């Protein structure tokens, strides 16, 4: 039975384009037409290399809901094609459909910040506000999931607009919010100053450090502290071969520097043992 179902799900059907409707569960809701020309040309030249994913089964009858492959579908429409290769994903509920769509689209370049943020926030709400579950289901890093949730929850409309237009990076928005202690108006101001003074990554980090330690710090203080170079003591420790290898692997996997991972590990341990609040 399971085997039949698997075979059914991987079988490719030629489905009339006219029988397909876009699903609300598709995470790509903005700028769907962006850079569609390249895809249109590619499909015209090589055909469609990967079928689109539809909800339900072929026996359900039209209209079929498109879960994954919106741009491929739009390209087919633009080319005036009558049919499109498609696979059926079975009876997916809205959460499963959103997860499939996000997981498929997340690692592509074209997914906008707005679409990704909307989808992550939707799943976070539907999955019992469990950020780890969202990360596990979508294959995104927990850090990234938390960044989306944090920004969506706290950032002002002004900051969100800047994020949507690409004027501000999510990392900077998060830094500004953290430095401002979650005060969205103060964060807006800090973002403007970051841009105006062309702060470096090191300066932004110091701004966050100072803001986290002094939630009442004024904007001027935060900027002054950001620019104040500090003496940073580093403790040299000897690691055994396996420990060193594990650290390298963790850094590679988390795409962070070994030092960042070591600092995080020490900080977690100190907090866990009650030495750090």
């Amino acid at each position, binding site marked *: 039975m399971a085997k039949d179902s698997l075979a059914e799900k991987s079988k490719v059907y030629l489905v009339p384009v006219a029988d397909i409707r876009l699903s609300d569960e598709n995470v790509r809701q903005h700028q769907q037409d962006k850079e569609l020309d390249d895809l249109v040309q590619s499909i015209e030249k090589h055909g469609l290399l990967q079928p689109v994913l539809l909800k339900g089964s072929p026996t359900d009858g039209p209209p079929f809901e498109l879960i994954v492959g919106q741009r491929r579908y739009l390209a087919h429409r633009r080319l005036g094609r009558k049919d499109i290769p498609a696979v059926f994903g079975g009876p997916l509920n809205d959460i499963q459909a959103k997860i499939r769509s996000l997981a498929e689209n997340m690692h592509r370049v074209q997914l906008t910040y707005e679409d990704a943020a909307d989808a992550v926030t939707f799943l976070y709400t539907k999955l019992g506000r469990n950020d780890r579950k969202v990360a596990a289901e979508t294959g995104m890093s927990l850090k990234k999931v938390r960044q989306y949730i944090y920004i969506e929850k706290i950032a002002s409309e002004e900051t969100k607009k800047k994020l949507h237009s690409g004027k501000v990076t999510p990392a900077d928005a998060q830094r500004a919010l953290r430095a401002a202690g979650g005060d969205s108006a103060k964060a807006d101001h800090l973002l403007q100053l970051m841009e105006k003074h062309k702060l470096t990554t090191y300066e932004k980090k110091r701004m966050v450090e100072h803001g986290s330690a002094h939630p009442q710090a004024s904007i001027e203080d935060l900027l002054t502290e950001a620019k104040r170079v500090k003496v940073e*003591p580093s*403790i040299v420790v*000897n690691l055994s071969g396996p420990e060193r290898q594990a650290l390298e692997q963790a850094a590679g996997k988390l795409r962070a520097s070994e030092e960042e991972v070591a600092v995080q590990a020490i900080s977690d341990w100190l907090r866990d043992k009650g030495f750090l609040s």
Partner: protein
Amino acid sequence: MERKLDEALAVLIASTRRVRRKLSLLQIAEWLEVARRELGGLQAVAERIGLSEEMLRQFGSVRNLSPGVKKLVAQRRIDSVDVAHRLTKLAVGEQLPVARALVRGQLNSDDVRAIVSLRRSAPTLSLQRIIQRVKDSENIREYLAYFAVPPDARDKGLLRARLGAVVGDRNIRSLTIRGALGTVALSAEGRGRLAQAAKDSGLTKRALVNQIAGWGVQKPCQRDRR
């Protein structure tokens, strides 16, 4: 054709997850291109070898580096996929100066990230100015080494002179002795000189500091890999 694809996938499985790789990033990127062509897209490769498309895209981006930087990657003087990928985000003409400074040890991977980020927000600033801004804004590193001080060698002046002879007096930021525990704070240059002296003597840095502290000559030991 099938054999070529199998070979490419095997190479990618063996090379993309490891920290210690046998192949350079450029070789991996070339095998990735073979697999991508054969399977029709990066997503298909990602599915076959169980790695994210995003990670593969980073490996593939090495092919977009300028020729000079590619040479450094081929020689494995630049061997981090993260660093190589970040370098591709700079204009072709700006990649090599940054890569060379990285290879010479004048920049580290955090500096490269900071340079790429600042370049994005300050497109009109010269590259030299960008690098200078990043370096000037970096915190000053001090390297702390702890060591035990023998009971008969707790003369701070003498200890400082002995340390200074190895690392240079100006590179000792501070030296404290509390009972049997000594702490020395060195500048980055001091740490480098200590590491070089330890290497020359076939000792670890810690063993050399202990020797300077007055514990006598220690047997040369197996150096740690760093």
